[in-house]
């Protein structure tokens, strides 16, 4: 299995930052750290890969190596000084495509210090691979990925075939620590550096944005089987069914 994890570094909240140490004192974004933990849990075999992608403004490898210590098998540091989410998404897609086929892309939904914008959705659109966002947890069984997802009123479990993209809304609550062996093996893992220039115009892969108003439909007194079929037809109609998935547990819970 080839799992890609998109990770970012961020500023620590418990340290005194100065102009001198601001580039050195970065830590791994906890939402992405959770993604790496999940990738490590899903990784079944020794030959499975967890490929880390990180975009940074500097070539400091500390955070990328932290990812390798937490389970990554190889790392790609992309040095790019821009901030535009479209640029970032385009670069990531370009680099991911160099990897060939993949099974899963995991990432955090946001950085601690600033929202990540629509990057996961842009990657979903550019790669044409289904995305499940707002995920709290995943596990893999019988060649399917089961995702626990949070929405405004619902906690639901969704089963999805691979390949797909998962973005996590959860950061690390119970940290996993790299063992001594993990730490000592970091320097044995390959790391690749790629530099991107802001002025390169071919970064843009155009996104089509549909400005549509979808008709809402309300069904009353309908059982869950029929409801699932209706929803599936509706999603097919509007091109929202990006992959084969089925609701296996649908329940309401008030937060």
């Amino acid at each position, binding site marked *: 299995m080839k799992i890609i994890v998109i990770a970012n570094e961020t500023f620590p909240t418990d340290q005194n930052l100065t102009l001198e140490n601001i580039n050195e004192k970065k830590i791994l974004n906890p939402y992405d750290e959770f993604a790496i933990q999940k990738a490590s849990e899903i990784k079944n075999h020794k030959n499975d890969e967890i490929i880390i992608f990180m975009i940074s403004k500097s070539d400091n490898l500390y955070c990328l190596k932290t990812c390798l210590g937490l389970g990554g098998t190889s790392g790609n540091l992309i040095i790019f000084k821009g901030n535009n989410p479209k640029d970032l998404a385009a670069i990531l897609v370009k680099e991911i495509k160099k990897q060939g086929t993949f099974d899963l892309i995991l990432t955090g939904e946001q950085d601690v210090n600033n929202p990540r914008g629509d990057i996961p959705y842009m990657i979903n659109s550019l790669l044409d691979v289904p995305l499940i966002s707002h995920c709290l947890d995943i596990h893999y069984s019988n060649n399917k990925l089961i995702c626990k997802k949070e929405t405004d009123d619902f906690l639901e479990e969704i089963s999805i075939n691979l390949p797909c993209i998962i973005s996590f809304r959860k950061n690390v609550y119970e*940290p996993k620590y790299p063992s*001594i062996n993990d*730490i000592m093996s*970091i320097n044995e893992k390959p790391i690749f550096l790629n530099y991107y220039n802001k002025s390169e115009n071919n970064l843009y892969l155009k996104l089509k944005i549909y400005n549509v108003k979808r008709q809402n439909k309300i069904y009353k007194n309908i059982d869950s089987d029929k409801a699932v079929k209706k929803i599936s037809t509706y999603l097919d109609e509007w091109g929202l069914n990006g992959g084969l998935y089925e609701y296996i547990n649908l329940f309401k819970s008030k937060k």
Partner: protein
Amino acid sequence: MYSLKFTEEQERICQMVKDFSLNEVAPGAKERDINGDFLGTRDLLKKMGKLGLMGIPYDKKYGGAGLGYLEYALAGFELNKVDASLGISYSVHISLGTGPIYNFGNEEQKQKYLPKLCSGEYIAAFGLTEPCAGSDASASQCTAVKKGDKYILNGTKCFTTNGEFADVIVVFAMTNPELGTKGISAFIVEPKNYPGIKFIKREAKMGIRASVQNVIEMENLEVPVENLLGQEGKGFKIAMATLDCGRIGVAAHAVGIAKGAYEYALNYSKERVQFGKPISKLQVIAFKLADMYNKIEAAEAVTLKAAWTKDEHAPYSIPAAVAKLTATNVAMEVTTEAVQVLGGTGFTMDHPVERMMRDAKITQIYEGTNEIQKLVISGAILR
């Protein structure tokens, strides 16, 4: 070449132990101390085993991390900042319990015990001290008589850290009392598997209350001949060499306690306001903090030097004695001053400095009292 700059791996190990200490160890440290919860300490040791910390200085082929005493000392600094009870249990396991098997065991003994000790599956202890044999280890009265394919051990050991939950205890006993120190032999005892061993007392102590020190009674304890460590009569040398290693761990233990107390006092002094300003702005407190910092820097330096010397396979008895003597005295001084900085509230259990001060005292006593260290150092310099 002695370098004062840590490698990236060493920094990462420090960070990992620091994160583990803050998240897993610190939250229950006060309660474990109040309740004498040594089983909680044992559970933390098991967790540390999964991180590879229980075999840091031992060879990879035996399941260790393949690192050295420098990394062990660095881990000790971070761990002892938050819980000295866990620190001492850890130090005894690594240096006193596992060390003799690693350094003096035959290949069968190493293959049998070291992988489990390095993974944390087994916890080790050290049974040298007796009620009548403390600093004078040669006054041992425990006996070991060979009968067929077993040694029969009789006698009492005290202050055996980790004793009650240890899977392996390295025990010293007289195989030939007429020869004095040359008649002492070392044995690997499995207390859970060998009948004839009883834990008759848990010491009620002033400090390190979340670690257990037992009085052990051996009554016709049968130990297989293959569990003789080294050769008959070499036990005293094994004990002394082991204590030399252990002193580096004790020094790291003491430096960690001192650092924890200093950092707490420093942060407190920045918040506590008296006479209209934080007490850190008062020169008398600022100078106390400066003295504490100064002493810790010196203690840390000699400890790292001793660890480095051992890793370089150079004679390290004197540097280890210097480190133990210096660091333990500093720990006592710094923790006492930390309580002083916090004032009346530092004397209460609301703050951890009183626990650190109680914990620091034992470091001046165990694994060779500071008076013995002075004996060792003066013996070397006046040779």
